[in-house]
Every structure is written in structure tokens, then in C-alpha cells.
């Protein structure tokens, strides 16, 4: 007597029929098309946002601040000089604009207010004399509240002016002064212990961090959202009872993996669309110059990261989607699905959060341990590969564990699926499920 699974041997074309049916239905669904378009549009906007913002800013040039000429000239004139030529060599953020003294403080303020009214300046400073040794106090007045970027810049500039004055009074030489004022430099570089010269510069590190961040979010969406969708579809097939006809037409295993593969291809297609939108937008001339202005170059990303991203997407997807398929198959009504999915939801959330919060300390024991737990490997190991330099055996071991888990869980899920799709009514307990498996000889 042959076992049931052996009896379900048939040509591969049924598998592809399921794959193509799954894909066509998904691609035709309005919700899918609309979501894809909306996310692509958001991506376009997001990528171009820095350029758009810089466009708005560059028109106005440095913000203009008014002051009264001769108002404590010992402070305002050096301040004006300092703001006009920042020490770090960048563009000037602020510019002091002098206004003639009107004779009385009231008249002075009046004229400055008029200047704000006519949009000549954003705000103005008033410097009041202080006691002999004290530095004069400065007031900044403008129409907007908490203009922290301007007050911040003013504070830095005033601090510099004050230091300059104090130092000059102390009778230091020019050399000493320069030494004192020169900023301390600290450079952080990531190095590789095993591979000389494989380290990353600060810019590359920043880039890698950003890339890993984006990839972990993409992994989460690709893995979690799609596999949830699979569970939902399977439960829907069950509750609409189309399952009864399906299982008498095609082997349950083929049906399950056909659906998983179909959804995977759809997901891949969706991600490809996003990547193309992203790359096209980034390589537009205006964005390219912006990126190179920040010393960022996408080509600097380690190509291994792309490959590992794809590997972890693939493995993570199959791990979670087979589990979700099994859960979806034992639930009879879509209302009960969310509850049944809770353990899987917690697992994938945990993996995602380990990935996100582990970014600040990719070397922590938590991340290291998590990278060997198959449910977290896609996030945690990817994080480690992206930000630190795990040994090859570590990567190999974690991937090996992941693949073994996929095979084992895939096998169990397939059995559950085979049994679950025929069980209606209340959600079966593990015991009932095992009993049913025995009865169905799966």
C-alpha cells in the first residue's frame, strides 16, 4: 500500500498552472496595483526631497539679520566678519546687515521692525553694554518663535567672537591662538581584522548604515507582509470552500508551494519596480550631484550586501511563508486568522526589532546570538554582514541552520497543510491535528 504523498505524483505543469494563476490574480487586483503605484510615487518624492528642499533654500541665500551700526561695534563688527566667512569653509548661513543709528533706541528698533516688515531681514540683534570685564549680552528678535537654527548659529558665532577677544587680551601669539582654536579631529574607521584594506571610511560606514537600515525594512516588508498575505489567501480559499475542489484537482503540496512561489515572484517583481524607480531617480543628474556633494556614491556599497540581501530575502520568505501557509490552512474563517498568526507575528517582529535596534551596537551578544537563530537570521545576520565583519564560517553556519530549518519546517508545514485544508469548524488543537494526520496517513 503506497502512502498518500506518493500517490500525489504528477507532471510539473500543474505547479506552474498554480504559480501563474496566483500571479495573475495578484497582479490584476486593484489593491495591489494601487499600493504599488502609491509606494513608487512616495519613493520618487522621497528620493527627490533633498533636492527639492535645497532648491527652495538656495534661492534665499543666507538669512539676513539686522543690527544697528555702531551698536557695541567691538562685538557686532567681528561678528559680521565671522559670519561672512565661516571657518569651516562652507556657505555662510547668516549675514549681518547694518542699519544707520537713528539716535534713540526706540527709533532704532522702529527702523529694524520696519525692515522685518518689508522682508529685508528675518530678525535683528540688539547688543547691550555690560560691566567692564563681562561680555555684552545680545538679544535676537524676530517674528518666529524658537528659531533655533538661527539662534544656534548666532550663539556659535558669538562664542567664537568672545574667545577671540579673550585670547587677544591674554597676549598669546598668533601661533598659540591658532592652535587653541583649531578643532580637535577624530576619525572613526571600520577595519577588517581578517582582510587588510577592506575597512570602510566614515562615509562608507554612513552609507552602509543607511543601506542596511533600508534593507532591513525592505526585508521585513518582503517577508512579513507577503507571508501574511499567503495565510490570508489560503484561509480565504478554505472559507470559500474552493479548497475542496482544489485539493481534488491538484496535489496539496504543489498547490501550497505553487502559491508560495507565485507570491514570491509577485513580491520580487514589486521590489524590482521599487528598485528601478529608486535607481532611476537617484541617477538623475540633479540628485547625482547632490549625492556626490555629500560624498556618497551608491557604487561604494559592498556588492556582497546586495547578494546577501537577496539570499536573506529568499530564505526568510520561504521560512515564514511555509509557516504562514500551515497556519492559514488550519484556520477555517478569516476572522480567526490574526489570532492564530500571533506567534509568527511576534517572531518576525522580534527579528525586525533586533535588526533595527541592533544597528547601534551590531557587535552586541544579542545580535550575535540572534544571528544564529533561524527566525532572526535574515535580519540579524544581514545587519552583522552590513556593519561588522563576521567570519565566513559564521555566515555559513547561520545560513546552513536557516536552510535546514526551512526544509524541516517546510516538511512539517506541508503535512499540516495537507491535513488542515480538510478540517473545518473550530481551529484544531495540536493533538487533534496529529490525530487527523495519522487518520489521513499524511
Amino acid at each position, binding site marked *: 500500500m503506497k*502512502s*498518500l504523498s506518493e*500517490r*500525489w*505524483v*504528477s507532471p510539473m505543469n*500543474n505547479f506552474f*498552472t*498554480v504559480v501563474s*494563476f496566483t500571479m*495573475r*490574480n495578484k497582479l490584476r487586483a486593484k489593491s495591489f496595483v494601487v499600493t504599488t503605484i502609491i509606494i513608487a510615487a512616495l519613493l520618487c518624492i522621497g528620493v527627490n526631497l533633498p533636492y527639492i528642499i535645497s532648491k527652495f533654500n538656495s534661492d534665499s541665500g543666507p538669512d539676513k539679520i539686522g543690527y544697528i551700526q555702531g551698536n557695541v561695534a567691538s562685538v557686532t563688527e567681528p561678528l559680521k566678519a565671522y559670519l561672512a566667512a565661516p571657518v569651516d569653509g562652507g556657505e555662510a548661513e547668516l549675514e549681518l546687515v547694518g542699519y544707520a543709528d537713528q539716535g534713540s533706541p526706540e527709533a532704532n528698533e522702529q527702523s529694524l521692525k520696519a525692515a522685518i516688515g518689508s522682508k529685508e531681514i528675518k530678525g535683528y540683534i540688539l547688543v547691550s553694554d555690560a560691566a567692564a570685564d563681562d561680555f555684552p549680552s545680545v538679544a535676537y528678535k524676530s517674528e518666529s518663535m524658537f528659531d533655533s537654527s538661527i539662534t544656534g548659529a548666532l550663539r556659535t558665532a558669538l562664542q567664537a567672537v568672545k574667545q577671540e577677544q579673550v585670547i587677544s587680551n591674554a597676549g598669546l601669539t598668533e601661533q598659540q591662538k591658532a592652535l587653541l582654536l583649531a578643532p580637535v579631529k577624530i576619525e572613526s574607521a571600520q577595519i577588517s581584522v581578517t582582510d587588510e584594506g577592506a575597512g570602510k571610511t566614515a562615509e562608507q560606514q554612513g552609507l552602509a548604515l543607511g543601506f542596511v537600515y533600508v534593507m532591513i525594512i525592505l526585508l521585513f516588508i518582503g517577508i512579513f507582509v507577503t507571508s501574511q498575505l499567503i495565510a490570508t489567501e489560503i484561509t480565504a*480559499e478554505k472559507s*470559500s*470552500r*474552493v*479548497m*475542496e*475542489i*482544489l*485539493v*481534488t*484537482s*491538484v496535489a496539496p503540496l504543489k498547490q501550497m508551494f505553487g502559491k508560495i512561489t507565485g507570491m514570491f515572484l509577485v513580491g520580487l517583481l514589486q521590489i524590482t519596480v521599487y528598485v528601478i524607480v529608486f535607481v532611476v531617480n537617484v541617477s538623475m543628474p540633479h540628485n547625482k550631484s547632490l549625492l556626490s556633494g555629500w560624498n556618497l556614491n551608491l557604487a561604494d556599497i559592498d556588492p556582497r550586501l546586495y547578494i546577501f540581501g537577496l539570499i536573506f530575502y529568499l530564505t526568510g520568505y520561504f521560512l515564514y511563508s511555509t509557516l504562514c501557509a500551515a497556519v492559514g490552512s488550519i484556520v477555517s474563517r478569516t476572522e480567526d486568522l490574526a489570532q492564530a498568526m500571533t506567534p509568527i507575528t511576534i517572531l518576525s517582529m522580534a527579528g525586525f526589532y533586533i535588526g533595527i535596534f541592533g544597528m547601534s551596537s551590531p557587535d552586541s551578544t544579542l545580535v550575535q546570538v540572534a544571528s544564529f537563530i533561524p527566525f532572526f537570521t535574515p535580519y540579524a545576520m544581514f545587519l552583522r554582514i552590513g556593519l561588522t565583519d563576521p567570519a565566513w564560517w559564521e555566515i555559513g553556519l547561520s545560513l546552513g541552520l536557516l536552510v535546514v530549518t526551512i526544509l524541516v519546517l517546510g516538511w512539517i508545514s506541508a503535512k499540516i497543510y495537507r491535513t488542515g485544508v*480538510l478540517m473545518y469548524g473550530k481551529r484544531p488543537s495540536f493533538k487533534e491535528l496529529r*490525530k*487527523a494526520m495519522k*487518520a*489521513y*496517513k499524511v
Partner: protein
Amino acid sequence: MKPLVLEQVSKQYGEKTAVNRMNLEVEAGEIYGLLGANGAGKTTTMRMVLGLIYPDSGSIRYHGKPYSQEQLRMLGYLPEERGMYPKVKISDQVIYLAQLRGMTRKDADRSLRSWLEKFNITEYYNMKVEELSKGNQQKIQFIAAVIHDPQILILDEAFSGLDPVNVELLKKTVKELRDNGKCILFSTHRMEHVEELCRNITIMHRSNPVIQGKLKDIKKQFPRERVILGSEQPIQGLESVAGVVRVERLENGYQVWIQREDTAQLLLRHAMEQTTLTRFELLEPTLNEIFIRTVGESNE
């Protein structure tokens, strides 16, 4: 070689026996009635025939061969609980199901169109299932079961939820399929459909096949216990005739339940002494009565 033969098929679910030593043979060009109360084991039997569940013992043979993927393609199934994708176009899903059973896309499409034409619902080709009435969904479901021209057809409650016109339409179609040599396993609770369609039947009760055989022979096994007397005048004292169980007054006559068949003759003599009879008939038991008797009696 009979298309479908079940031999001593049994199925246990844990402690509970779902089907016990079921024997059954269906010939080509025959509609076989599978009857039973809810939970009697009909669905389990059908699922075993469909290969969804494997029997614990006994064998199921299709044209003399055991179950395999080829047999699957010969099977058509109309489940009791109707199920289609509510939001998928009818042409898409019916062609999909036909493809899964080994048809090419082109053949499936041609077959679907001819079935839609047969049922006079060609306009549904591009519609979604959720847009159809229940009866029309049923027709689509039926098409999905027969589109690949299966040799063996399993119809679970084929006519439930249909209006009389559509019942006739589907009944006619089922008869045509039978006349085309298909082998049909048919389950229903509507006994009049069984009397009209089936040659052989099995009545299942609590997992056991209790009554089996030709419908005609089964009826003969059961005593005739009902007499119709037609008369213009009232007849007195029918109740007092020995062996009478119950008397019911009809529009123009009486219906009398009796214990034994020969009571009928006494009844006839008694009535003729009083008046002229326009009608006297000793009725065969209906399948409904046989069913209720078999299933109901042992239920107590």
C-alpha cells in the same frame, strides 16, 4: 470493467468508525444513489473515492486500477459546500480548475463556452462569482465539475438551493451525462430525485451500509402498508377492521395504513359492502418511508 468499485472499504477516525465495510459498484451509464442521514459517512466515502482520504482497509478501483494521478483527471466533483473564488472572473477560475485537471487552456475555454451556452448564461463568462445569484453560482459550480469531461462524477447534493426550473435543467443534464456513459455517484436528501434518477442505491446509517441494491428490489422487500380507497360516499368503521393502524380522510376517499398486506383484502371487502369504490390501490412504500424507517427505527 466497472468504472468504480469499492470493496470492503473502512475508515477509522481515532476511536470512531466513519465508514464500515462499504461495498459499492457503479457501472458506466448509471447514477448510483448514496443516501444517509447527516454524519452517516457519505462525505467520508466520497472523499475516499476522490482520493482525499486513504481508506484504512479495503480497496477502491477505477476501471480496475488503483488510485493514481490519471484517475484524478477522470474524476469530477461537485462538493456539497459550494466553493468558488468570489472575486475572480468566472472564465479565469473555471479554466484554471480545468487546467489543473489536465486540459489545455484552449480546450478548457471552448468547453466552458459550450457549457455556458447550454445553460443559456453566456453573459457570465466575464463576470465574477459574487455578482451571480445562488442558483447561477450553482450552475457555474456544476460546470467546474464536468468541464473536463470526467468519466466518474461525484455529485454531493447537486440540486440543493435551486428553483424548480433549474432543478429540471440540471436533472436533464445529469441524465444526459448518464446516457453518455458517465458513471455518477449521487448523494442527496431529496428522495424523489433518487427515485427518478437512480437504479441502485445504498442507504448508510451510522457508518454502515444498511440497505443496498436495486431500488425496485428494495421496494419489494418492504411490505405494502398503505391502501388508497376512492369513494364518493363516506365509509363507516374502517378503523374496526382487524390489522388497520390508522385511517386518514382524503378529499374523495381514504388513506389507510395497515399492518400486513392481506389486511388490504379485508379492507376492500368491508368497503364494498357499504358503497361503490372508484379506486383501490395497495401502494408500494416510497423511498422516503423506507429511509425514515431504516434510519429512524435504529436511531431509537
